[in-house]
């Protein structure tokens, strides 16, 4: 399905915030204005400026583009945050990674120029979070900000500030368990700097609202310890964090278009290109530009957010599959079980380097709704594909495990090129039924 901009609704400039109008490109603005005036003159159907639920995303290498540490296959957008209640103490931050594998907004402290209010517990102690990702950890205080992206906004959004000098991610002190559990401070798994993360922040728009949920409200051994009460930076204890205080996917706090997102990226001709631009569209079936159309709905389980992927079914049954726009490649099995050779250069560890493009196929099945879809995909030679200038590589694959048995099938950003992907949030109402699900 190709995206059809809605030229109908948004001609009504009066219902759009000024910032949205400013956000339009000059050419689009001109088209919009011309469209409106001609419609008013002719009395015909209202003309068609873009609606306010579309944020531009760009696979452009991110803040470290042009260096060997560019974020290949990362979709970046920009967000505006303000001190809650203020319209002047605001900051627009670009280089924000759009991530369907996490939930909530996280900003690197080094790029944050605002002083945001610190969330505190009932004893007035700061709340500091340990966020665990498939590839590492984030550590830093929970603060609140008014959030705007495209024409959508969320007031007093709890966010995580990563790499805060006030709460350093050291191996000792308050961050000990968080850092140790994930390889330690200063390793490649330490995501608390722009240099390490390769992004200025993460916008988690996956299948859940909060990044923890009710488990983090529990006491004692039932609490997974994601949220911490830190009287000082070096003395933190697990905190009971109310759901409403948790770092949350901002989409659920929008006034409309709040049931999920659509990610649209064009296909990449010949497998790689410098930059790809697309859209992060808010809402599913809420506007004329985010309908499900013929997309196949695969429900995901409500604890992990996964469907089932069957690949090489004779050898390996179904596995936990997930669509993760923040993963740079399709990560599945290993060289021994796929027959795809691993790259010889240590700088390309874990990636596949077949001599010629390998055309493969897998089947994705809904967790419980009986739907399934066959996905044909290609894995090319990573060493030949990755270079300093091409940031979008649609045929990049890598090993998901070291051992001859899958733990998961990680459908990273290469899956998203040329396919509109819908991500419905747990408990949300959509024209395709209740979330959580993915559809494409």
């Amino acid at each position, binding site marked *: 399905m190709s995206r059809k901009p809605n030229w109908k609704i948004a001609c009504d400039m009066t219902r759009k915030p000024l910032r949205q109008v400013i956000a339009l490109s000059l050419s689009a603005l001109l088209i919009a204005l011309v469209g409106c005036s001609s419609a008013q003159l002719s009395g015909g159907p209202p003309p068609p400026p873009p609606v306010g639920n579309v944020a531009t995303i760009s696979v452009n290498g991110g803040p470290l583009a042009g260096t060997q540490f560019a974020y290949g296959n990362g979709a970046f957008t920009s967000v505006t945050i303000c001190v809650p209640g203020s319209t002047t103490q605001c900051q627009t931050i670009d280089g924000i990674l759009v991530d369907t594998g996490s939930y909530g907004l996280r900003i690197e402290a080094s790029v944050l120029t605002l002083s945001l209010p610190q969330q505190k517990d009932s004893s007035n102690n700061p709340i500091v979070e340990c966020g665990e990702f*498939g*590839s590492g950890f984030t550590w830093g205080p929970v603060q609140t900000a008014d959030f705007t992206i495209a024409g959508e906004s969320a007031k007093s959004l709890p966010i995580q500030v990563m790499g805060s000098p006030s709460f350093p991610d050291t191996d000792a002190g308050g961050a000990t*368990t968080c850092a140790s559990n994930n390889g330690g401070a200063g*390793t490649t798994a330490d995501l608390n700097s722009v240099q390490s993360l390769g992004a200025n922040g993460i916008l988690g728009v*996956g299948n859940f609202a909060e990044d923890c949920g009710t488990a983090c409200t529990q006491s004692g051994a039932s609490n997974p310890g994601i949220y911490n009460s830190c009287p000082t930076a070096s003395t933190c204890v697990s905190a009971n964090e109310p759901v409403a205080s948790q770092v949350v996917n901002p989409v659920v706090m929008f006034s409309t278009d709040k049931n999920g997102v659509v990610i649209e990226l064009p296909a990449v001709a010949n497998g790689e290109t410098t930059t790809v631009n697309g859209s992060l569209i808010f809402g599913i079936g809420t506007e004329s530009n985010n309908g499900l159309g013929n997309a196949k709905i695969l429900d995901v389980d409500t604890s992990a957010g996964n469907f089932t992927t069957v690949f090489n079914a004779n050898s390996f049954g179904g596995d936990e599959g997930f669509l993760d726009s923040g993963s740079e490649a399709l990560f599945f099995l290993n060289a021994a079980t796929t027959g795809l050779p691993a790259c010889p250069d240590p700088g390309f560890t874990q990636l596949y380097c077949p001599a010629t493009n390998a055309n493969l196929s897998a089947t994705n099945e809904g967790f419980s709704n009986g739907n399934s879809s066959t996905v044909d995909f290609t894995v090319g030679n*990573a060493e030949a594909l990755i270079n300093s200038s091409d940031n979008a590589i649609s045929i990049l694959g890598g090993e998901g495990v070291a*051992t001859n048995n899958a733990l998961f099938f990680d459908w990273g950003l290469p899956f998203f090129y040329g396919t509109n992907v819908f991500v419905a949030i747990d408990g949300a109402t959509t024209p395709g039924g209740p979330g959580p699900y993915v559809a494409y």
Partner: protein
Amino acid sequence: MKPTLLTVVAALFTLAVPLSAQASLGGDVTSVHADQAKLQATVQTTANDAYTVEEVKAPTGVVVREYVSSAGKVFAVAWQGPVHPDLQQLLGSYFQAYKQALQTQKPTHLRRAPIFINQSGLVLEMGGHMRFLVGRAYIPNLVPANVQMEEIR
């Protein structure tokens, strides 16, 4: 000898007392019970000819499986849950090797990818996404000869 009430009580008492052993991977089976006590978890044991699996379910939703050889050694661990388990406890004496391996890993062209350590003394792999974190670790030379690693997950 028929079990007397006293010996039964003694056996129960042994199981109920938190053991001081904290090591897990590479440790002996009693370390599993230390995990159970610390996590306030339930343990389910299954066995085959080659090994015993102690599945520890914590109230956090984290499930850890510890694979114990007939010699009584934990040769592999696997986990899944909304967070990683306490790896310092789970990896025991191999925790330092895990940290050291990651600290010497150089950044590659990959930024966000599953984590691998594939050394002769320790294999560890972990990945997933927020709210679904999964991993596996084992000591290659402790794995019983007739065990296929495909079984470990």
